[in-house]
Structures are given as C-alpha cells and as structure tokens.
C-alpha cells in the first residue's frame, strides 16, 4: 500500500464480498444440515438418502471452510448467524431454519464451531448426537454433556457451546418488550388519529402512519414475539383501531415468514393498516350498533371494502397514490373463488397481500370481542375453521403458513395441561414439527391459585425417560379462571 493513499481492494469491498459469500454458503450449509438431521431422524444410517445427505453436508462444510477456515454457527434470538453474518430467511429455507433453530435450542446449544480438520465421520457423529440430545429433556448441563460425548467419540473438530446469556440479555428482552409496547400504543394512536381525521374530513397525517408501519416492521424483524403478544390486548382502545394494528402486525409477521423483503413488508404493512379504512365512512350508529344489524345495515357494512378505495383516493398528502392499499382494502373480503364481497365483474387475481390480510383479519376479528360478537371464539377453533372449512374462502396455503407462524395454539390461547395447570400460550415453538407444543406460561399454582407472572415452560421438552412432562389437553376460556390474558404480555 502506498503511504497516504487509499488501500487497494478496500475494506468495504472485502466486507461486502465476504458477507455475500457467507449469506449464500451459510444458507446452503443450514439446508444440508437440516436435510441430514431430518434424513437421519427418518431412516437408518445405511439408507442411501442418509448417506447422500451426509455427503452433501461434508461437501458444503468443506466449501465453507476453504474460504473461512472456521465455521461458527450462533443462535441469537430468532436469528442464526454464520461467522457473524445473519442469515436471511426466505421462502426456500424458512422451514429448515426453524427446524435447525429448534433442534439446537432443544439441545441447549448456543453455538457450534467447526474447524478445518473436520471429516465426514465426525459430521455423522455430530448429527446423530444432535438428534438424540434434542429428544432429551432440557437441562442446564445438556450442552456440556453433548460436548463431552463428542470428545469421547473423537470428534475434535466440532465443538458446541451454551448460549451466551448475560444480564444484558434479560435487560434487552425487557427493552424489546417496552419498545413493542411503545410501537403498539403509537400505532393504535396514529390509526385512531387518521381514521378520525378522515371521518371529520380533515387532512390525515400520512407521515405518522408510515412511521408507525416502519416501526412495526422493525419490531417484527427484531423481536416478533413481543409484538405478537400485544395482539391479545383487549379493550385497550376502540376495536376498529386495535384491530387494524393487529392485522398489520399479523400480516407483517406472516410476510416475514414468507420471506418478503423489508420494503415489501412495509408495503404489506401499509396496506394491512388501511384495510378497513372504508369503515371511516360507515355511519357510527351502524359501526357501533349493539345487537344484530338489519339487512340495510349489513349492506352498508359490506360496502366498507370499496368505500376504502374511495377513501384512499381522497387521502391527501399520500404522495404516491396507494394502489396496493386500495387493492387490499377492496379484496380483503373476497374469497379465493372471487365470491364474497364486493362483487367482481372484471377478471382479477387476488393479490397475495389481500390473501394475507384476509387471513390476519379473519383471525383477529373472530378472536376479538366486538359489539356484535360479545364472546370471542377461542383462537385454536378459529384456525381450525379457517383451515378445515373451504367455504370460508381463505387461501389454504396462506392459512397453513399462518398456522406455521402462530402455531396450532396461537399466542394468548388459554389452555389446560395434563398436569391440571392452566397456562397461556406465550409463543409458537420455533421448531414447526412441534407446532402443537408451544412455549406456555403456567399461570396457576399446583393448588389452583392464579399467579402472576407465572413461569415459562416449553411443552416440547422431554423428561429423562423421553416423555413430555406437560401436554395440552384442552383449550379453555381464561375469564372462567379470572385470567386477564393481556396482563401477561404487557
């Protein structure tokens, strides 16, 4: 390098090149690791499919090691990092990622290190041990036992480490929770302000809406669970406002699951937040009417999708005309066969965003208490209906992805365990093969007393005999036990 002159082959170039390689090769590595784990789980070691999976794992590992000398696979929150590069989820790999994330967590592993000397045999032993330890009950020493087993088996080039846990993590989680609460509260307030402005014929502040949606996207990308938990809030503000924000959160989270980019998530979030904007033109006496609606009133209510289009055309200060928002507002009550409402004369293909928002909207509406639905339906029942009843007209693949996202028992579901404990679903199990075994918060004592905050239990855990100590036996109504669900999420 010439003194005083800029370096040749800048750091930036190096950083970019390395990042790009790691993203690509890291994803390949995760996918082949997943294939090997899954094959070995299903077939004996001699099986040709297992052998091929191990061959692929060896080749991909060596390819990475040719460039990087050492591979560090680290779990941090919901993310997987390969040598400090965060791997991006997309449609092609999210199931593999979730599975690997679950298996590593289940084994108590926070990081895996592989260095240049690794051979196929060592990888085979590692995958076998990983499988057997993932099936065991989680204990504080599990990862160290696994490390010892690896060493005993002569696996010297693969190491496992526990997760890095510090006070900062707990503080960080608390900060994330507070940030989620701020984001949620602001989003509801902004939605309220915009809807009320439109209702009163005033100019709506679109800038604030954009900021709110951007914050929701950031929050979902950083810590999805804390924001999803807040969708269980009831009576925080008027249904219309909280519902719009909930639909936005569910939609963005589902979009993330489907591998949408950050900017696509923003498009989806904006459209989702405005999906019911047409209700600002529905008379309040119809919107808030208690009891049944007359035919004429239903007709007015059913006009809200297309009223949304007219409203968005009149939304001054938007800059660009919000076409995508209009399409979603218009289509979110259309069924996949284009029945539903409004009626469609000209040929159209439902937008994927409309399908996503329709599912999020249907789920949140059915699980909420509204003026004309005083008793909310239990979340699992809503999902069951969406999944099993084709007449509801939801896109089945989107519903399936939604179930993958929130689990069979969505966040906030009140369940009775086979231990006679009452629990609230805290988060879906990151390993989608445990879709029926979420992480729950036990909220009653063995004697039956309701406790706050209770404690978390992962229903996928097994005891020493390989049995699940806790399983869900029934979904129940939290009010029956004096439980205010949202108290456990705020």
């Amino acid at each position, binding site marked *: 390098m010439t003194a005083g002159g800029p370096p040749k082959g800048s750091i930036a170039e190096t950083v970019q090149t390395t990042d790009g390689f790691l993203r690509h090769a890291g994803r390949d590595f995760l996918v082949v690791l997943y294939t090997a784990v899954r094959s070995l789980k299903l077939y004996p070691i001699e099986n040709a499919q297992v052998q091929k999976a191990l061959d692929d794992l060896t080749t991909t590992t060596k390819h990475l090691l040719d460039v990087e000398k050492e591979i560090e696979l680290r779990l941090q929150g919901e993310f997987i990092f390969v040598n400090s590069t965060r791997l991006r989820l997309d449609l092609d790999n999210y199931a593999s990622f979730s599975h690997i994330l679950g298996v590593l967590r289940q084994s108590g592993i926070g990081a895996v290190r592989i260095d240049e000397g690794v051979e196929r045999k060592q990888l085979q032993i590692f995958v076998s041990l990983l499988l057997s330890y993932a099936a065991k009950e989680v204990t504080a020493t599990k990862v160290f036992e696994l490390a010892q087993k690896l060493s005993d088996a002569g696996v010297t080039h693969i190491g496992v480490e526990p997760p890095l846990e510090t006070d900062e993590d707990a503080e960080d989680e608390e900060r994330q929770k507070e940030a989620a609460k701020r984001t949620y509260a602001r989003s509801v307030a902004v939605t309220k302000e915009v809807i009320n402005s439109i209702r009163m014929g005033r100019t709506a502040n679109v*800038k604030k809406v954009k900021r709110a949606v951007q914050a929701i996207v950031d929050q979902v990308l950083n810590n999805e669970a804390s924001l999803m938990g807040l969708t269980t809030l009831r009576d925080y503000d008027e249904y219309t406002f909280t519902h719009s924000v909930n639909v936005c959160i569910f939609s963005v989270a589902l979009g993330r699951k489907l591998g949408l980019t950050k900017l696509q998530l923003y498009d989806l979030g904006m459209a989702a937040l405005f999906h019911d904007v047409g209700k600002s033109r529905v008379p309040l006496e119809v919107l808030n009417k208690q009891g049944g609606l007359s035919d004429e009133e239903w007709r007015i209510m059913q006009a809200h999708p297309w009223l949304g289009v007219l409203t968005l055309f009149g939304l001054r200060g938007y800059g660009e005309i919000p076409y995508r928002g209009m399409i979603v507002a218009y289509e979110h009550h259309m069924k996949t066969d284009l029945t539903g409402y409004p009626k469609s004369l000209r040929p159209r293909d439902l937008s994927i965003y409309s399908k996503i928002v329709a599912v999020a909207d249907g789920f949140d509406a059915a699980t909420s208490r509204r003026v004309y639905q005083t008793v909310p339906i239990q979340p699992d029942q809503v999902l069951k209906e969406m999944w099993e009843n084709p007449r509801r007209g939801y896109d089945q693949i989107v519903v399936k992805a939604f179930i993958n996202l929130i689990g069979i028992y969505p966040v906030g579901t009140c369940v009775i365990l086979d231990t006679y404990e009452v629990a609230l679903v805290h988060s879906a199990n990151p390993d989608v093969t445990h879709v029926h075994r979420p992480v729950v918060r036990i909220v009653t004592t063995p004697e039956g007393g309701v406790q706050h905050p209770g404690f978390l239990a992962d229903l996928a855990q097994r005891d020493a005999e390989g049995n699940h100590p806790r*399983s869900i036996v029934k979904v129940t109504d939290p009010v029956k036990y*004096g439980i205010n669900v949202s108290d456990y999420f705020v």
Partner: protein
Amino acid sequence: MYQRAVDNIRASFRQIWQATDDLVFDVGETELRWEDNVVYNQEQRGESIAWTLYKDGVRSLAFKPGVEEAEIVSFLGVLQRARNLQADAADDLLTLLWAQDFQFVSYTFRELVSENAAPIEAGETITSAPPTDVRHAVEAEAPPKREGLVSIDDFDTTLYFLEDNEVAYLKKDVEREYAQDLRRNVLSMLFDLLELQTYGTVRAELISIVENFIPYLLGAADFRSVALILRESRAILQRARELIPEHRQALEGLPTRLSQSDSLSQLLQALDESAVHPTEEDLSELFQELRPEALSTLMVWIAKLHDPYVRDLIQGSAARLAQANPAEVLKALASEDGAAQLEMVKLAGRLKLPGAPEGMERLLASEDRGLKLALVEALTAISSPSAMRLLEKAIDDGDRDVRIAAVRFLGSRGYRNAAARIESMVTGSKLRNADLTEKMAFFEAFGALVGAKGIPALEKMLAAKGLLTRKEDPETRACAAMALGKVRTPEARAVLERAVQDKDPLVRNAVTRALREVGT
C-alpha cells in the same frame, strides 16, 4: 464537478478507514461532533446538514466501511430530498432513511411526533375464584390424565411445513404482486364499482375520480391506462342502461375531452418533451380511443414535434384516424393553421385518401408554394377523377413548378380531359415566356395526350419555314420535336426524320432523342 466531489468523499472515507472501523457523529442543531470535537458547523439552518438531520429527530449518525462505495451517494440524495420536503409532505427524513434500508449507515433518533398514545398497562383484575375452586374447575373441565394423550399423530402433519409446490405457489404470487399493473387493477375495481353501484352520489364520486385520474396518468406517461379508461367508459355506457343523463354525458365526454385541442396539445407536448417514450403499442391503444376531431390537432403538432420517434408514432395514429374519418380530413384541410394543412395534404397523399381532393381545391388558391407543391404531389398520388380534375386546374397555376408537376403527371397518365387546355397553351402564347423545362413539359404532355391529331401543329412548329413565314425559336422547335417523340406513330417519325439535319444543334439534338423514343 459532481463526480469529482463524489470521488473526493470516497477518497476521504478510505483514509478514515485506515484509522478507525466506524465513524460516529453526534448530531446537534447546527453542528456535527466526532469524539466531542465539532467537525462541522453551519449556523444558517437552511444550509446546514446538521439541522436537516436534527429537525427530524436524528441524534447520532454512524458510517461503516463500505459506505463510500455502496451508499454515500444515496445517503446524500436522501438528505437533499429531505431538505426540499414541504411540511405537509408524506415523508420526512426518518421515513426516507428507513426506506433506503442502508447497510453501512445507521442512526439513532428521538421520536418527535406525539400521538397522544395511551400507555399500555395491565388491565383490571378479574376476581379470581379461590384456589380450590379453580382446581376443581380444572379437574372438572379437563379429561383424566393419561399417558401420551397428546400425540403427534393427533395433528395433521401436513401443517408442519409448506411443501415445495406450496412454496413455489407463494413465491409466484409474490412475484406476480410486483409484476402486476397496479393502475390497471385499480381501474378495473373502479369500473366494476361504477357498473354495480347504482347510487347516484357514489357514481358521481367514481366518475370524478376517473376524470381526475386521467391527467395524473398522462403525467405518468401511462397511456395504456388512459386508453383502458376510455374503453371501459364506452363499455359501461352500453351495459349500464340505468345511468342518469348527467353521468352518461360525463362518461361520453371523456374521450371527447381528451380529443379536444387543449388537452391533446398538452399530451403531445408532454410526449415530445419526455425522456422516456411509450411503446407504439401503448400509444396506439390510446390514440385508437381518440375522437375523430383530434385529427386536426394531431396535424398541427406533427409539424411541431422535435422527436422523430414521437413524430412517427403520431403520424401512425393520425393515419388511422384519417382513414376512418374522411370528414375530419376535410376539416383538417380547412384548418387555419398552414402547417396543419400541409401535414394533412401530405398524409392524404401518402394514404391516397379518395375523399381528400374535395378539401384541397380551396388550397390550390393558396399563396404558399410549398403547400401547392405538396398538393400536386398528393393529388398525383390519389389519382382519382376528382384529383385529376384539380391537377388540370393546376396547369394554370401561377407557380412554374406547380404547373410543370401537374402537366407532367397528366401527360404521363394520359388524362385526355386536359388535352384541350394543354393544346391551347402549346399553340397559344402562354408559354412564350416560359423556360425550356416548362415548355418541354407541356409539349411532351401535349404529344402524349393528343397523339396523331397533334402532328400537323407540331410539324408546323418544327419545320424550318420559307422567307415569308416566321420561323419558331429553336426552344419551341426542340419542344415540338420531343412532343412528336411522344406521339409514337410512323407519321410522327417521318416528320422527325425530315428534321434530322436541322442546322440548329438544339433542334437536331431534340430530334435525335425523340427518334430514339419513337423507335423504329
């Protein structure tokens, strides 16, 4: 200069990265501080980068290696955009920065906008039953505990993962979402609504939206969508029979409004000035929807357009309109605008529009030589009886070139109706002062049209006379020889052969050429 500035910034960053791994500034109202040292200060807020950052809430700004190559230009672009934003704009610096999703630029900010958000707190306590009651209720509600109650087999295992084909389906849907024509989609919604919603106020609002949408679409050069609006309006006029007259009139008026001179002129001006041009297909879709009255305006603009691509496109569209609307062609020919008249004449000629001569007669009286020449050219191309009639008139025109062009064509086409008029000119005094080219044109046309009957007159002119008879000038004699060449009979040949040895070289030469034309 711009590139030099960018290069300087990049070079500066590269030097900085030799000393540090990141560059973090604290943002003040008018200054940027690095490690507590003020490194930038500008008190004039309008000029200050610090103020641009500070006023929207940014409180620190960090750059990482790589920013100079990948993102610094975009970052500066965002700052510039943010400085120019109006207070009521849909964006501020923070929304713009977010949308860029910078990888090498990060920032912290303070939320300045207050939304009066209510804090989220735990709800009111629900009175809980005594523990023993809860326990009893749980036991009553839950089935008796048994091993393996919940088994993986109880669940639909297809729910665990999306299958490959399902992933492909979703991927395709996302791709379609971003490949679709959003405006077209929204327009389809609007026209569905317009057709189905029978409320007068709703229809009025929809029509108003559509009307206001058109200039926006034109401004965005989305001509195909405008064409769609016009087409769908026409469809609705046919299908929605219960439309009230006011709405019907408004929809019917859309293409008319767009075809009016002012609106169409705006469109053509925008097209000519635009850096990005629509495809021929897009534009022709729109122009197919124009009313015939648009033709005159198109003609006016064809002459003014600078961009050859646009001119070609407009000419194609004008041609379609002209072919389908003879009456509009006549209107365009009657235009007050000379340039429009000229273009229409040329177009009529290119298209060989048989009805056009009707509107061209008046133009023959024009003082504009270029126009008249174009007229003759157009009329010769059209060649209809009415066109020939006008060409016959044109041989009396005040302009030599017009006369020559007209008479040559009439002669070449054997238009005998003009023979008498040409004969009177050839045998009379009108051509006396004409130059050789014009004389030759008339004589040749005469020979071609009159044939053998003209031989005596031509022989008289060609022959060298006795002392008492005035001899024609050599030019007239040469022309007579050429005219005889056009007669192409043995008699004509005989007359020519007698003049082969004429003393005048001009005549001799003409005779030789004429004989070649007559043949043996």
